[in-house]
């Protein structure tokens, strides 16, 4: 159980670093890590600059982005700083955390949320005695992330000519999302 949870956290960290990439160098490092964590393959001679252009086209800009990596963009309305942002800010606060320079970058960026997933103690770990943490975990992993990440993944898959590193990361994200579902949820089906 503990192994499974820590495996999920390592996966979350690797994905976090991917979606927090700023340039081709970051992307290369992060992609290799994701490939390792999730046992996926990536060509040695991948076009990292091309992947950088692609990453920006999909997630950053300056054009309108087809797959904005923010919960708000998929939940109540395609905007930033919506209700999901503030909900997740509360979740961070419950664990004594906040995004750096709050107010500048939306709290619900995928990289921040993956960071929280990586930070969260798993069930059975020592913080389990704190009911708030358990509630946050239940909500975050069972409701919040499944509430928007699949739509985000879909949005990427709908695009033509997605670069190999991004495709791979998104595939990894999908399987990670499956793996983190709390057991109680799975029973509810």
């Amino acid at each position, binding site marked *: 159980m503990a192994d499974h949870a820590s495996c999920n956290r390592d996966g979350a960290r690797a994905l976090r670093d991917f979606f927090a990439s700023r340039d081709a160098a970051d992307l290369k490092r992060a992609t290799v890590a994701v490939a390792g964590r999730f046992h996926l393959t990536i060509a040695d001679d991948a076009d990292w600059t091309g992947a950088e252009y692609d990453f920006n086209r999909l997630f950053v800009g300056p054009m309108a982005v087809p797959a904005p990596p923010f919960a708000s963009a998929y939940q109540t309305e395609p905007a930033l*700083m919506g209700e999901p942002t503030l909900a997740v800010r509360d979740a961070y606060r419950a664990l*004594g955390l906040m995004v750096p320079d709050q107010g500048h970058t939306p709290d619900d960026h995928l990289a921040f949320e993956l960071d929280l997933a990586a930070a969260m103690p798993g069930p059975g770990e020592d913080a389990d005695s704190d009911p708030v943490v358990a509630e946050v975990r239940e909500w975050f992993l069972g409701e919040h992330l499944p509430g928007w990440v699949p739509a985000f993944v879909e949005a990427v898959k709908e695009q033509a000519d997605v670069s190999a590193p991004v495709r791979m990361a998104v595939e990894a994200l999908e399987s990670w999302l499956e793996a983190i579902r709390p057991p109680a949820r799975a029973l509810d089906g």
Partner: protein
Amino acid sequence: MTAKKCMFSRRRFLQGAAAVGAAAVLPCTLLVPDKAQAAAFSEGDYQTFRNACPRNCYDTCSIKTYVQDGVVKFIEGASESTFTKGGLCVKGYAYTRRPYSPDRIKYPMVQDGRRSGKWRRVSWDEALDMIAKKMLKLKEEDGSLLGLGMTKYSGNFGITNYGVEGMMSSLGYTTRFVGTPCWPAGIDAQNYDMGNMWCNDPEDMVKARYVIVWGANPAWCSVHSMKYIMEAKRRGAKVVVVDPVFTQTAAKGDVYWQPKTASDGALALGMARHILDKGLVDQDFVHTYGLGFDEFADYLRNNVTVEWAAEQSGIPAEQIMEVAEEFATADPATIWIGYGMQRHTNGGASVRSLDALVAMTGNIGKEGGGARYGHLQTWGFNYHALIQKQPEGSKGFMGGAAKGEFDFTEGSGASYTDRTVNINKTAQSILDTTDPAIRMLWVSCKNPFGQDFDRPKLEKAFDKLEMVVTVDQFFNETVANSDIVLPVTTLFEEWTVNASYWHYWLSINEQAIKPMFEAKSNIEIAAALSRKMNELSPGSCTFPQDIDTREWMAKEFNQGIYDMFGIRDWTDLRNGPAKARLKSSAAWSDKKFATPSGRYEFKSEQCANNGHKALPEFKTGRESYDKFRLLTPHTKFGLHSQFVNLDWMHEYNEEPYIYMHPKAAAEKSIRDLDMVRVFNKVGEQKARVKLTDNVAEDCLLMYEAWFGRGNDYNVQNLVDDESADMGAFKAGAPGVAIHDQFANVERA
């Protein structure tokens, strides 16, 4: 109970004070420990801020912004302003969409290969490094910074945004695109006639007994002014709307005149001739306060008849006579002279005729009267952001620079100046300018590919530029044609101050939220550039390197402003906008004109000296060069290329259309909503057509706007850069004949 759409409902994990969980040693690298404050939010509380719409519209609304959890939740118009009166417009209410659009430009980015679509994210430092090095290279190779051009205009009229011009000055002598596509011909005309462009307080229109709205469409472009026209009407005034298109404003008047486009001068002169014949001239005004009226009267008698005016304009003679008599006998009577009306090769001359109509009937200087065009009375700021010094030893242009209409600076007396080129001929200027060529372009508060004329020519011109830097909030065609894009703040993310060129209110613009992502305001960009320039080459830029936008906003105020608005300090404006204390709502109430003679100059030597006629004589319009006249006025759903791209706006404005008369369409077998192609010597544009007799048979109407995501609709594919007659006198360069364009159409 409210619907779930209540602002406050959201998941709460904490009841009361913040919990401090196992924060200390959590293994994350992005999230940081919470500052352990008490629970920040109490239900139902908002922080409110004062903002102002800086989009250069007549109405310049005062805004009240409601923020919660550091997020702008909604806005409304300030109720303290009798002009704004608590409400904004369809564009203003879409504002909360702008800072939080996922499509917003977030970081400085570099395009590898212009128009390639291959963008890399870079840090501000990297971006400014590239920019600074290019500027220094220009200086080294050309011996000056004249190879650096700045094109900027009305995208953001918060006063501190003049820091862009200030930034250019602080680098050296550069090439400036001066002039304005907006209103220059009319500005010159009013300056020749009266010595300044100065309109009544629009709120006094309620006192008018006769209102002619001539070539303006306030129902779309100045919605807050409509209530004054409606009130005048309710009190018994007659409202006549003159426009080649049956606009929304026209539908609200008593009488609608649809003259031939660009025949307005003839129409006004015809009315003037009739007023003269009927003995309805205000003799006291024209002889005590006017100059040259007798010569004008002679001109009318020898050159103008009502029948001639009817033939020129298409308005029947009896109508011309009836309205002329009504206008001359109503007291007071007023004409709202629109900017569309002067976007012609004879625009300035036409405005002079309309001014003359108001003057000869004694309506200048009357409350409720006047020749209303615009004013700059409330713009007496310090222009601290604008006024920066060139570095020691800067070399520049030796031929004297033109000044734009918003340039309130005094000449420096230096022998070097900036080099100025015509903003209305941006493409041609870039192609033609040499010694040195314009090699680098800085774009801010403007979208040249959306607004500048002859788009195909502009593409060629951009090919000549070695580096294009664009500062903007959203991706548009200009960004697509740039090398570097820098993210800029919205009105909620910076401090500035705003005045209007129409009403007399003043609004503070407070910073309500932190800038999203890495956006910086124009003056913060200038400061950052200065730091980088001086790092690479000490002394190469005089712009202060550490600035606070709030301080810079405060520095714009002076005692003159305080006295005019009856405030102690700018902080008073945090309680709401303030209105100028006017001794009269009428401009020129003392009839002391600012012309050389001190009188209203029916005959203006200055005008003749500048290559026009001394009297407001008739000037023929541009010859047609294609089958239909093409008009490209403003849409109500956007302010040029701003707002139309927002998804909220798409809910109500789904696609652009071409408007055509049913008879003309039938001749070409075009049916309603068919896809058609409009084409002329400049280029072509496709869109679907809507048939309506709101437009005349020989006219095609397309609204100028840019529609965002996936739509490349752009009227500049059809508009050339033909100059208007006037504009060089007081606005830096001649205007442009935007509505003297011609084209043909066929089914696509």
